């Protein structure tokens, strides 16, 4: 079982591959993934939202 505080795991069912993300603290973030781009949303103090965009490299 993946630990709740472990690095997020992106599962690509089409390729039957899973990627464990390194290089950013994404705990608690809502993620959106399209191709090589990953977006992460983190609420800050409830009245502000930070959206970070990353490139994903295997």
């Amino acid at each position, binding site marked *: *079982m*993946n630990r709740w505080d472990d690095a997020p*795991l*992106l*599962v*690509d*069912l*089409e390729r*039957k*591959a*899973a*990627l*464990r*993300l*390194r*290089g*950013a603290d*994404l705990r608690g973030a*809502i*993620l*959106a*993934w*399209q*191709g*090589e*781009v*990953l*977006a*992460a*949303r983190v*609420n*800050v103090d*409830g*009245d*502000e*939202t*930070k*959206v*970070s*965009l*990353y*490139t*994903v*490299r*295997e």
Partner: protein
Amino acid sequence: MSPASSSPLESAVSRTRSEILLAALVPFGLVMLSSLGAVGAFVSSLPAMHVSLWASETPSAFVALVATGVVLASLPRTTARIGAALALVAALGLAFIGSSAFRERFGRDLFASPGTSIPVSEASLTRIREVTVPGGATRLLLSPRGGSFAVALEAGDNARESDYVVETAPGRLSSMRAVALEFIDEERILVLERNEDRAMLKARAFDRESSVVLHDLPLLAGVDLDADPSGIWQVTGYDRVEGALLIVRGSFDGGAPRETRFSSEEDGSTLVAVSPGLRALVARYDMPGLPLLALGATPRLVMPFRSTRRARPRRAWASPFSRLNASRALLWRRASTAPRPMAVELVFSCSFPSPLHSRLSASFPGRSMETTSRPAADSS
């Protein structure tokens, strides 16, 4: 010769034998317990899970064994003391079988179906940019190539619409109000706007200078949009008035949209229906304690709803399964190419220490249902 007339030597020998027997029995029982690991090689993991759940959720069996052991130990007869030792060993064995350590070692997910293991590899992230949006966001959307994003800001519980913030160019934000929103490509978005008691589906360019009305439809609960790179759009939601999951599918190139309804009133147990032309999945699960759970799924939406048909009478007996309730349903997909793979995960709540997972995956369009694939990390 009666026991009363036996010599002190014979009595001492007899007592010594029983003590030796007792002294050997407990370690032997512990050795047998420790050898339960070998049993796992011969017993399927699913029955092991069932037995473990029964043991963990039937503490009365453990208490009864301990009580029996205490009663037998208080009796003067040697055979009773042997019985007490056996009861103690059985109680320890039951406690071990009911432990989470036993389940982790010998059991497996009750709802997982056989599937290939998915290898996990490392991926590094490099930040491209970070954008601050005023307000708390509840949803995050990303354009097909990742050039733009949109977030839905928090709305009241009864709000039919949400305020969306769309990044129309790197660092440039635009606000709009809509029931739902989805990216079509890097320049256009699909927007469902409320129009009094109806809803209007539009394709809108980022600059807002041009928009095309695609369809007029009733207000739906749990509405979701999808835009396919091949030029197909889709609206999904639950029509409370009709009591049906509604799927409307059309083309940006024109033509009459096609509507399909999946009634939630239909009877059926463990029925999985796939409509290949509409890329929709309707799955019904007849579950203890929850007469009928139906999941209407599109590539992004899973909406559980309960049938209104009359609930079955409660069962007189209880099993570990009777305490399961589907607490949430999640759906994942990777929306870069078609056909789009999707997976449905049901997370059940029960007295089991960690959530039990059930996953179904399917590729659309197509009739085939794939068996579950579990990330290798899940088994660690």
